[in-house]
């Protein structure tokens, strides 16, 4: 299979990367991979169910704050702390998903936004636990289990993040290609018809929101343990907007595209912010250009250039339908 070769080559290149770049670039690399993971988690909603979440920062913030609290309060090994944080995110996501999926379209976007902002507000309410506007600082990366310490260093942490990203990608890829994923595509293309076929679409949507939160929470957890702090800004709607930009610019509905989008923007931001303080302007302009002229995103451009047949089965017929509608 072609994609397996591609995947192995890409993964191999990522594994070798720390040996080729200086240590300080690793920080950017790790951040890029974390944002790639975060963007990919949102793609499950945007690209596969056409549910535009404008509050995905809630997942990121939940993951980050849970990790921060677990690692600072309980003496647990880092991987277990991260897993617990993901579990907390999932538990919190269930009621959120239940309420948000009552509506679709714009209302869905606004509801998810409301939950993220509610989380933001709650951080200031429970100042004793969350540290209010200071956030939580000094998050350790405890060793273990079995005395493993390799992820405490920067290179080791890079591999931890890379492993999480690759694993999550494979998992998401399997999900969207399963019968479950086929129902999601049905919801995206024509929800009424999918309901008529006898599927309880609400259930599928709830499950997908929870899944997206789980992976988003993982990204947040990895970020908190890496940066060593969690601040209220993680919950703020600008984060949600940023990650949505990454998904769209990367190419929604492809999983790989949003990862590229996340990596692309972290690098772009890093490089541009060193040269000019106008980078948000450039950032916004690039984004507008993509929405206007290349709605299929970076990955869409790449695949149509170098590959006669795109790897993702749905992307071609989706384009046709949107062209027909236009």
């Amino acid at each position, binding site marked *: 299979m072609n994609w397996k070769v591609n995947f192995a080559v890409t993964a191999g290149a990522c594994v070798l990367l720390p040996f080729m770049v200086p240590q300080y670039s690793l920080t950017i690399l790790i951040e890029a991979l974390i944002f790639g993971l975060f963007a990919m988690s949102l793609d499950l909603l945007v690209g596969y169910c056409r549910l535009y979440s*404008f509050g995905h920062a809630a997942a990121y913030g939940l993951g980050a704050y849970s990790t921060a609290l677990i690692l600072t309060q309980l003496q647990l090994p880092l991987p277990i702390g991260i897993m617990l944080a993901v579990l907390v995110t999932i538990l919190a996501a269930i009621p959120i998903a239940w309420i948000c999926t*009552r509506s679709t379209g714009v*209302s869905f976007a606004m*509801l998810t936004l409301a939950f993220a*902002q509610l989380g933001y507000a709650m951080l200031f*309410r429970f100042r004793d636990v969350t540290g209010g506007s200071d956030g939580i600082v000094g998050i350790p990366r405890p060793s273990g289990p079995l005395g493993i310490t390799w992820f405490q260093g920067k290179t080791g942490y890079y591999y931890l993040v890379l492993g999480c990203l690759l694993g999550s990608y494979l998992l998401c890829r399997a999900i969207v290609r399963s019968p479950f994923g086929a129902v999601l595509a049905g919801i995206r293309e024509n929800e009424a018809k999918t309901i008529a076929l006898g599927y309880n679409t609400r259930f599928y949507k709830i499950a997908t929101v929870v899944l997206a939160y789980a992976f988003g929470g993982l990204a947040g957890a990895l970020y908190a343990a890496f940066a060593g702090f969690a601040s209220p800004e993680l919950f703020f709607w600008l984060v949600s907007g940023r990650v949505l930009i990454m998904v769209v610019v990367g190419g929604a509905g492809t999983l790989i595209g949003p990862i590229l989008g996340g990596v692309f923007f972290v690098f772009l931001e890093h490089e541009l912010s060193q040269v000019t303080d106008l980078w948000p*302007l450039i950032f*916004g302009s690039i*984004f507008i250009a993509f929405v206007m002229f290349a709605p299929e995103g970076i990955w869409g451009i790449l695949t149509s250039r170098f590959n006669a047949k795109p790897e993702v089965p749905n992307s071609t017929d989706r384009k046709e339908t949107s062209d027909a509608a236009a």
Partner: protein
Amino acid sequence: MNFLGFILAQCLSALSQAAILFFIACGLTLIFGIMRIVNFAHGVIFMLGAYVGVTTVAVTGSFLLSLIIAPIVVGAVGIAFEQIFLRHLYGRRDGGAYLLLTFGLAIVLSELIRIIWGAQPLSSGIPDFLRGIVVILDQPFPLYRLFLIALGLAAAIAIWQFLERTRSGLLIRAVSQNSEMVHALGTDVDLVRTGVFGLGCAMAALGGVLAAPLVTAFLGMGTTVVIDAFVIVIIGGMGSFLGSLIGSILVGFVQVLGAYYFQDLALAFMYFLMLIVLVIRPGGLLGKED
């Protein structure tokens, strides 16, 4: 202490807050009703209005003039944006594209404002003739806030009459109900859309001019306000003019009373209100369920 006077002062304070929110929310809801667009740039448009207003006051020295110039300038910016960008997306099936495009515009516009006006907050101060204090039932109350309530009320009545009594208002209502039918009957629907987008932006700009003396014009004043406006529009029902009025008043009260009695929870109250409304009525108070 005069308890009744205290209550009244609180209510007036909430209403003046509601007046500013109404200017933003009403434009937002009109634009949504006509174009099915959630204008994420509305907060930045509001901010642009504040900056243009402050500059007008600085140049001409007239606050009343800024109330006229800022909406015209910002309305023109809105129309230009609609013509250059939004118009090309009308055919696209994907409603999310608007959300993304206006979000991109919000980023670009707020950067442009930073480049033009700088990062320092600008203040025009309350104009002299509105600077006084009025004593109501032994409670001092700023005249400027009464002015806001009066203006908000006047705007609400004017727009209501405009929508109900004029031919343009009729067209706007018709387009929001069934744009294809209006188009088939020979009306230039695109022109209505452009007009409403400009009008909505002008309204937000007016809100910005009015808010500037209270909070100064600063970068980021649009970031929180746009979310408040979204909450209002969602509570009232998307596309419903009356809903935006009711939503503004509700949120105005929740914000002012929440800040006074429950400081820690003030931020959260608004979202609680929205969640409760949506769980009971998913389409908002006066909205249609879709």
